[in-house]
Structure formats: structure tokens, C-alpha cells
């Protein structure tokens, strides 16, 4: 077994009114990939911010190579060989790769930049990491995965980096790019770099990590060897209770059930000849790699983008959908993959968000009826079990899962019976995910029809009655849940022309 190089013990951190870290601990061994997992608010990020000098600890000790150290600033951490790559990329898109790597530490000769030497240094660095990236390339022309690797290269450009923290590095990557990243991480490992890997994607842990450390409520729960546990066991450690809706073994929908939504030959720049039917009470999964055209299809149906051709029928009747207003009136509610950008007015209250599409219906007189609005929003917030201090609370103060519930109730309140869930559990922690699954199943049981777009195959296989697979804007396969499995779906998802 490799020696322990980093030991954090008895770490305490208080924020006003919050005990964020309660005797947290962490051990990292040389050349290992350690997963740090926990629900949102479990204290992972706070612990990592203490390690990388963003926050200072209130109590506790940190030992690096057996020596007690005191980390005061990010610069301090980097000098000691500890670097972090944040979830959001922090690159300057208009600068070159080399300029990004050496930002703040430019190679200068007197007053002027020494571009040539800097590019050379960057080239050597990238080559040593076996990265096929040119130092003179402007960063915005790189794929997201390549940009991520530039970030990592930047972190490693500090002399003798021994510990690298990766915070949700795969959140924005496609499957192919994730594979590329994993290969890269394995190479780092072989070079003796230890990686602390934070992720919400449970299936990745098995692939890339050696050990898993679980945190809950600011406390250390347990460290386990990845080989010796199942994902379900890890999840149980994270939430401290058994979770997850039962997976579906067969479709709950009668094949003769009414077709509520029918799309025929939809076409746009990113969508090629897409036709499908959605039945009453059905959860129809849309699988595919990133860029397969699933979100784009959803946006055509809800009028967010203009379609070039194609017909949309609701209960057999053709409807004209040219803008979101048309689709909302037709009873289609779209829950975007990017809630904060497309789904919510973050600064406004839960109530204001919930009643927004329904104001026309709920207030026909000159003035809005405040009391009635509060009443209905309370009713719907309770119906979907939204956890909020009151309906007057600003949505930005809610957790991801509860924000998603606000969007759901917004459409329920508008009487939408076709709901399009686009990546419904993105950025939501494990406990919150299960709440969303449960809610979707309840809605389907009530007779709502649901389209579920997801990049997490296990969740699609758990929830859907039927799965449509897309690739490069086309539908390449359709599977009943009884016959669907990961391999089958992936085969269709990669069926390029």
C-alpha cells in the first residue's frame, strides 16, 4: 500500500450560524485517485477550499509528507504542490493556451513578454503530459474536454504538484471526452500525482477511483476501497438511509393508451426528421450523447426555437407552435437542463415564479388577487413537497432539488399535462434526485405524460417506460423498457451515419 502523503484531521469550520465542518478528516495516499463524495452541503467543497487555501480552518491539523503545515492562501497551497481545478472553467477564452497556463506568472524580459520562451515552456509541459494541444491555439477554439485539460495542465505547471483536486470535472463532458480525461488521470497517477476527485456521477467512481471517502453533514463518514463496495452502498453511506425508487422492469403504459403528443418529421439545423408519439401516463426517455439533438428537439416542441418543417399534434389535433406562448397554451411545460438560466427568476419569490405562466388565467381583473395567488402557490408547493421557509422566500435560497420542484409546480399550476424534463437531476444531490424521481412517477400515475431527457443512462433505465435513442439529430432506435439495457442504448447512441 502506498504511503499517506496528506492527512487532514479534526478540521473545524464555522460560518455565521453554520457548523460547516465538524471534525472532518481526510487521508490521501501517494499516486491514488481518491473520490470525495457526499450530498450537496456535506462539506466537500469547504474541506477542499481549506486544503487549497481559499478558506482558513478554525481548528484542526494538516500534515503534508508527515510535516504539519499551515495553508494561508491559494498561492501558499500551490507552492506546496496542492492545486485545484474548479468545476467552472476559469480560462480566458480569447487568450492562447500558453498565455492561460502562465497567466500571472508571465515570462518577461524586462518590460516585454517573452512569448517564444513561454510557448516553448508550455509546449514542453503539454508534451510531458502527452496532450496533443498547441500552445498557440486560442482557447475558445478547443473542445470543452481539451479546455479542461488545459486547466489541469495549468494546475500541474506549478513545480512539483503532488496533489490535484478535480471538482466535478466531467459535468460538461461527453462520454468520449470523459474517457479521454480518465486516460489522462491514469497517466497522472502513474507519474505519482494524487488526485482528489469530486463527482456526483456515481458510475464514474467505479471506473476511475481507488478509494472513496464519504462525507455527510460536515463530518467524515467512512473511507472504503472502491473495489470492495457497490454504488448502492456508497449512496447509502452518503444519505444515511436507503434510497431510490424501484427500477421499472416493464412499461406501466397500456399500448392502447391515448396518444397525447405526436411529432412528425421535425426538422431544424440540429434536428433531422424526428417523429415520435407520447402516450398518456407515459415516461418517454430520450437517450443519446451530448449534441445528439435531444434538447434541440425539446426546444422545437416548446417553441423556444423555430422549426424548419414538421407537424406537432396534441390529442390528434394539429397545433401551431411558433413561440413558447403557443406551446404553454397547448399544455406543454418545459423544464430546462439549465434551470437557473431558462427556468427560474432566481431573485423572485417561490410564489412569483410559480404563478408566472398562470397570471393570465388567475387574474382576469385589473389587479392581481394576492391572497388567491399565495393560496394556490402554497397548495402546489405542498403538493410536490417543496422545502421552503415560505412561498415568499427568494428561489435562489432554495436547494437545487427544491428549485426543480418550483419549476414543476409552475407547470402543474398552469395545467400543463405534457411535461418535458430535460436533465431533471443535473446538479441535484442524491437525496434530492430520488425526490424528483418519486415526483415524476406520481405525475405519470396521475395521467401526466412525461418526456425525460437524460445523459445518465442508469436514471433513464430506472424511470422510462420506453426509450428513444438519438444520434446526430436523428432517432436511431426505440426500445421498450423490458428490452432496454445500457449496451443496447449505447449501440444506438453511437450509430452514426
Amino acid at each position, binding site marked *: 500500500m502506498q504511503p499517506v502523503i496528506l492527512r487532514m484531521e479534526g478540521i473545524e469550520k464555522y*460560518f*455565521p*450560524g*453554520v457548523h460547516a465542518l465538524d471534525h472532518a478528516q481526510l487521508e490521501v495516499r501517494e499516486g491514488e485517485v481518491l473520490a470525495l463524495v457526499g450530498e450537496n*452541503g456535506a462539506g466537500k467543497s469547504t474541506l477542499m477550499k481549506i486544503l487549497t487555501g481559499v478558506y482558513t480552518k478554525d481548528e484542526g491539523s494538516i500534515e503534508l509528507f508527515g510535516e504539519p503545515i499551515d495553508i494561508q492562501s491559494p498561492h501558499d497551497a500551490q507552492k506546496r504542490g496542492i492545486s485545484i481545478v474548479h468545476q467552472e472553467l476559469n480560462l480566458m477564452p480569447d487568450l492562447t493556451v500558453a498565455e492561460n497556463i502562465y497567466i500571472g506568472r508571465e515570462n518577461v524580459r524586462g518590460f516585454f513578454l517573452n512569448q517564444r520562451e513561454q510557448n516553448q515552456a508550455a509546449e514542453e509541459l503539454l508534451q510531458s503530459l502527452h496532450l496533443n494541444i498547441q500552445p498557440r491555439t486560442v482557447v475558445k477554439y478547443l473542445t470543452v474536454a481539451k479546455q479542461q485539460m488545459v486547466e489541469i495542465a495549468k494546475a500541474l505547471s506549478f513545480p512539483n504538484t503532488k496533489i490535484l483536486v478535480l471538482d466535478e470535472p466531467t459535468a460538461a463532458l461527453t462520454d468520449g471526452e470523459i474517457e479521454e480525461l480518465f486516460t489522462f488521470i491514469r497517466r497522472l497517477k502513474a507519474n505519482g500525482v494524487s488526485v482528489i476527485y469530486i463527482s456526483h456521477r456515481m458510475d464514474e467512481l467505479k471506473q476511475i477511483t481507488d478509494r472513496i471517502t464519504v462525507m455527510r453533514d460536515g463530518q467524515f463518514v467512512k473511507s472504503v476501497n472502491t473495489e470492495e463496495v457497490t454504488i448502492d452502498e456508497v449512496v447509502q453511506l452518503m444519505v444515511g438511509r436507503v434510497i431510490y425508487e424501484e427500477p421499472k422492469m416493464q412499461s406501466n403504459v397500456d399500448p392502447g393508451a391515448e396518444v397525447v403528443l405526436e411529432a412528425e418529421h421535425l426538422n431544424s439545423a440540429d434536428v433531422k426528421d424526428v417523429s415520435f408519439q407520447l402516450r398518456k401516463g407515459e415516461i418517454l426517455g430520450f437517450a443519446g450523447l451530448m449534441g445528439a439533438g435531444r434538447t434541440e428537439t425539446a426546444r422545437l416542441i*416548446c417553441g*423556444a426555437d423555430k422549426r424548419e418543417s414538421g407537424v406537432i399534434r396534441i390529442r390528434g389535433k394539429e397545433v401551431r407552435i411558433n*413561440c*413558447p*406562448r403557443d*406551446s*404553454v*397554451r397547448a399544455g406543454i411545460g*418545459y423544464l*430546462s437542463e439549465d434551470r437557473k*438560466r*431558462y*427556468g*427560474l*427568476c*432566481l*431573485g*423572485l419569490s417561490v410564489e*412569483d415564479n410559480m*404563478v*408566472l*405562466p398562470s*397570471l*393570465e388565467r388567475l*387574474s382576469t381583473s*385589473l*389587479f*392581481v388577487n*394576492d391572497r388567491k395567488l399565495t393560496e394556490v402557490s402554497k397548495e402546489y408547493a405542498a403538493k410536490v413537497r417543496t422545502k421552503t*421557509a415560505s412561498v415568499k422566500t*427568494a428561489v*435562489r*435560497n*432554495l436547494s437545487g432539488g427544491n428549485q426543480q420542484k418550483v419549476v414543476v409546480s*409552475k407547470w402543474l399550476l*398552469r395545467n400543463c399535462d405534457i411535461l418535458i424534463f430535460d436533465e431533471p437531476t443535473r446538479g441535484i444531490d442524491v437525496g434530492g434526485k430520488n425526490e424528483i424521481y418519486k415526483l415524476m412517477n406520481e405525475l405519470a400515475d396521475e395521467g401526466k405524460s412525461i418526456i425525460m431527457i437524460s445523459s445518465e443512462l442508469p436514471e433513464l433505465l430506472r424511470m422510462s417506460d420506453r426509450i428513444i435513442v438519438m444520434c446526430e439529430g436523428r432517432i436511431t432506435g426505440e426500445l421498450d423498457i423490458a428490452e432496454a439495457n445500457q449496451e443496447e442504448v449505447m449501440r444506438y447512441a453511437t450509430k452514426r451515419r
Partner: protein
Amino acid sequence: MKKLSGDKIDMNKLLAPAALIILYIFFSAFGNNFFSADTFKNILEASYYIGFMAFGVTFIIITGGIDLSLGTVMMCSALLGAYTFKQGCPLILSVLLTILVGVFFGLLNGLLIAKLKLPPFIATLGTQMVSQGMGSIITKVQSQTWPTATDLTGGWFKRTFIRANLFGINGFPVGALWLLGAFVIATLILHKTKFGRYTYAMGSNEEATRLSGINVDNWKMGIYILSGLFIGMAGLMYAAAYTTITPGTGNGQEMNGITGVVIGGTSMSGGSGTMVGTLIGVFIMSVLKTGLSSCGLQAPWQTFFTGVVVILAVLMDIQRTKAANRAKK
């Protein structure tokens, strides 16, 4: 863990009223004859046109937009009203025309911003110059005068909008009633109607609002037109208070309105603000103007201090936004 301490929010709400009271006490102590009924009337009179501008632009700023044409449109409308009156138009029609000029520029701004998708800053910078130029061209750069209180034909103009012998009071500030009325209407629209709700929603997240099935473009047009109506009214109040309108002025007046709104707690980034706040902000601006001149500091100093207040107000706005973002985490 996600609660912001209640005290902090209240502090922010109290800041503007506190500033108003402190300013008033300060000028009462140091100004020449500031604490008097006459000065109080002056403060009121200076607040009328600023108030109308500010009420209108509050809607725009809450949507996350901005209107830089406020001041020159106000002057243009007052100028054209006076011009038509001088040309022999019945006073009542000139009054209506004044308001319509405001509405026209509101419509123009709305078209440029909501339909043609120009950034509000650029669009209204354009209409700022267009309106100023238009006023000068039509009047051939001649100053125009509205009737004074003693005029036989149009004496009712000032009596209706500024001051009259009412309720047994000599020189009762009628304008304050107009201001109050406009305030009540603006408050009701902003806080009690769909129109108001959509204003906040658009400012908070325009795309999410559009995807909620709301015709964002049309509502935005409506907001600029409503604001234009208020600006036209501001032109009327300005005309009634100051009688003589000089072409080529008005530039810079927009800052009085905008600053009033921002001091009153409306965020420049949109999505939040109240009409009460704007009213208080307006009084801060007019107390400042009147107070400075009572200290013997004339126009250049007023401009100087308005600039200082603008900077302070926006700094406050940044602090508020920061506090809101902290609450997010």
C-alpha cells in the same frame, strides 16, 4: 444555513429614508433659511418633474433596461407644447401634445429595444440626441414660454399643476397632489397588476419569462410607452414650474431621475425595486438641489454633488447585489 440575518435587509431598507432625514437636518442647520415653509414648497416643486421621470424609469430599470433620453424627451415635450401654444393652439391641446410627445418617444424607444433588439443604453442614447435636436429644430432654437399664473388666457395652467389658492391656503402646492396621484397609480401598476409582475420577471430573467409563455416583446413595449407617458407628464410639470424652456437643454436631467430610482433601492441589474423607494429617492434629489442652493452653492456645485451621489448610489447597488449573492450560498 441559508438565511440571511434579518437585520441586514432592514438596514438596507432604512438607508434611504435615513439619508433623506439626515440631509434635511443638515441643510436646516447650515442652509440659509432652509427650514421654512417657502423652502419646503421649493423642495416640493423641484420634486414634481423629477418624480414623474423617476416613476416612469423605475419600470424600465426594474426590467434591467435604462433610459438615457428621459431628460431631453422631457424638455422636448415641454418645448413643443409651448411652441404650439405660442403658435395659437388652444392651451388644452398644447398640454395634451406635451404628454403625447413623451408617449411618442416611449414608443420609439420601445420599438428600438423590444422589437429591433437594440441595447437600451445605445437606443436611448440615440433618442436622447434625436429628441434634443428635434426640439431645437422645430423651435428654431428660440426659447419658449408657457403662460404664467397672472396670464388672462392661460393662468389656469400653473394653478392646475403647481400652486393655487385652495382649501383656504395661499399658494397651496397642487403639484404635490399630482405627484401623489401619480405615485399611487405607479405603485398600483407595479405592485398589484400582471404588468408589474411581468416587469419584475423580465428583469430577473427575461428568457425564463419568455419560456413561461409570456410575450416579452409586447410587455416591454408597454413598459416603455408607460414610461413615456410619465415623462410627458414630467415635461408638463417642468413647464408649469419653470415657465421658460430653453432649447438644447435637458441633457443631464435624466441623471436626477435615474439617481433617484437607484438611491431608492432599485437595482441597476434589474429584478428588484419599489415605488416607495423611488419616491424617497426623488425627495433626496430635490432636497439636495434646494439645499445646496440655500447654502449659496449654485448650478455647478449641484451638478458636482449629483455626480457624487450617482457614484455613491451605484456603489450601494453593488453592495446590495453582493449581499444578495452571498445569501445564495
